[in-house]
């Protein structure tokens, strides 16, 4: 269990780092492309993951129910803990706060390396967006970090 956790983390870091390494040698415009490529990879992973995780669950009552599922079961399976705080304006915008985001804990516990954090969040944003998309919700997911390893994911559900 713990060695498989290590593999997952290390694999994620290495593939981001090697992909990101290209970023640092590119112009800023290309950097945005690389980040969106990472997000796209996350999207596909999220879609697949949600199929596996909800295989046996009953269907969801409403949007809030789906978000609660994401915050509890989904987050536990993927990031090994639950979301600490969910806020919403009941009009399609949700803010998910994770105070010890699994992919940031080893980076720092404060402000060091804050500028590097967004790269490591792109993939995870994609995972959340992919999961929601396969549950029927189109969304835009962004992440923001002010103090590591605490992280806020903002999900805006797109209405047709």
């Amino acid at each position, binding site marked *: 269990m713990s060695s498989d956790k*290590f593999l997952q*983390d*290390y694999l994620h*870091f*290495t593939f*981001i*780092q090697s992909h990101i390494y290209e970023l640092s040698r590119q112009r800023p415009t290309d950097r945005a492309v690389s980040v969106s490529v990472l997000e796209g990879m996350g999207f596909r992973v999220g879609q697949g993951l949600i199929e596996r995780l909800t295989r046996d669950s009953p269907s969801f009552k409403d949007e809030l129910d789906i978000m609660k599922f994401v915050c509890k079961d989904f987050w536990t399976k993927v990031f090994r803990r639950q979301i600490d705080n969910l806020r919403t304006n009941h009009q399609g915008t949700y803010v998910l706060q994770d105070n010890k985001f699994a992919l940031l804990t*080893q*980076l*720092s*516990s*404060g402000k*060091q*390396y804050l500028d*590097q954090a967004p790269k*490591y969040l792109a993939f995870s944003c994609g995972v959340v967006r992919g999961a929601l998309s396969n549950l029927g919700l189109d969304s835009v997911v962004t992440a923001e970090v002010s103090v590591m390893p605490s992280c806020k994911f903002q999900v805006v559900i797109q209405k047709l």
Partner: protein
Amino acid sequence: MTIHNLYIFDRNGNCLYYNEWNRKKQAGISKDEEFKLMYGMLFSIRSFVSKMSPLDMKDGFLSFQTSKYRLHYYETPSGLKFVVNTDLSVTNARDTLQHIYSNLYVEYIVKNPVCVLGHSLDSELFSSRLDAFIRALPYYSPRAA
């Protein structure tokens, strides 16, 4: 009972990390020279010990002592060298050094994607956890014995 200072070297002899908690006397040379001196000594003493050993060696060089302090040494299979100077009441710091390697170095440096292996250890998280660990050791005290 106390810990004086700690060095971490990589396999090429670069000093990745140094910190001191209780050092009363400096070496009188620049830090760079001091690190080179320390590494050179370790290298020589290890090869001396293995050459002159009258028996088959198991772990090789572990520590040396003077009338005032003891130097403990731990080398990982990956070539990382941990050196700590303590006072004489600490007979075996090998477990401590091993803990520093597996629970601090591996956790906060190896698993940190921003830290490039082989460069000096900048992570504040590593530094602060290491400091907290050292201060929590049963044989640490802020004033020398």
